[in-house]
């Protein structure tokens, strides 16, 4: 049914002409959408890092951070590097002493 034989549709057309949508609604809305969109992007970027930091803080594995093999962290046995440390600093005593 078209507006010519429907007073409700004519009324709607008149209302749209008499009450144009204030332009600041679109400005405010698009501003809010942009903020929401930016927050979404920020979450996508930072949440994985934030989770990683949380895991580390709670004593989780450091493997992703400094590349140490996980089994050494779990067993508590010093790694080869630490065992061969400089004399007097740690690890086994220098030969002949």
């Amino acid at each position, binding site marked *: *049914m078209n507006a010519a*034989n*429907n*007073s*409700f*549709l*004519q*009324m*709607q057309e*008149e*209302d*749209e002409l008499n*009450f*144009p*949508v*204030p332009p600041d*609604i*679109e400005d*405010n*809305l*698009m501003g*809010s*959408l*942009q903020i*929401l*969109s930016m927050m*979404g992007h920020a979450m996508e970027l930072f949440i994985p890092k934030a989770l990683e930091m949380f895991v580390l803080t709670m004593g989780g594995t450091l493997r992703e951070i400094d590349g140490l093999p996980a089994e050494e962290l779990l067993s508590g046995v010093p790694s080869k590097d630490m065992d061969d440390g400089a004399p007097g600093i740690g690890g086994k005593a220098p030969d002949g002493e």
Partner: protein
Amino acid sequence: MGTDTDSKTKDIELIQEYLRTKDSRHFTILYRKYSGKVYGKCISLLREEHMAKDATQDIFMKIFLNLGQFGAQSKFSTWVYSITYNYCIDLIRKKKKMANIFTDEIEKVPDLEEEVHDEALLTMEVNRLREVLNEIPVGDKAILLMKYQDGMQIKDIAVILDKTESAIKMKIKRAKHKAQEVYKRMYPET
């Protein structure tokens, strides 16, 4: 009919494109297409421009946030208008502290009374129709707008208002009677 189908397809394409790309230009097109009608409905139901302005902004924010849930079972316009009507009805209910503006009380509409023909409302002079609609309860006004302005099906109105189809048919009948009574009271010469 073809135009309706084209419009529906275009709306769905825009929504899908927006959801895929998150490019706000697609949402802007939808906003510009429907904002006039949504704002007009808000003015018509709330009858205050500043309230209508805030309501339109909130309604489009709701639409944006729930766009992913639009299932395309109904037309996008029906979905948009259902959010608009529900938002305005909730606002009026809160303002008037009413539990429900679509009351289920048994109203005295004699069954034998002659059915008000659609033409009586559809051919009413526009300014008179506007005045009549402003005189009847807002729930009745909303239901008449859904049926005669938005061309919604009874089943769509039933879903929007969470009522049965037979309840909606009865409400439309009552609303038409009220509108005719008000018209006769306001314009007794006709």
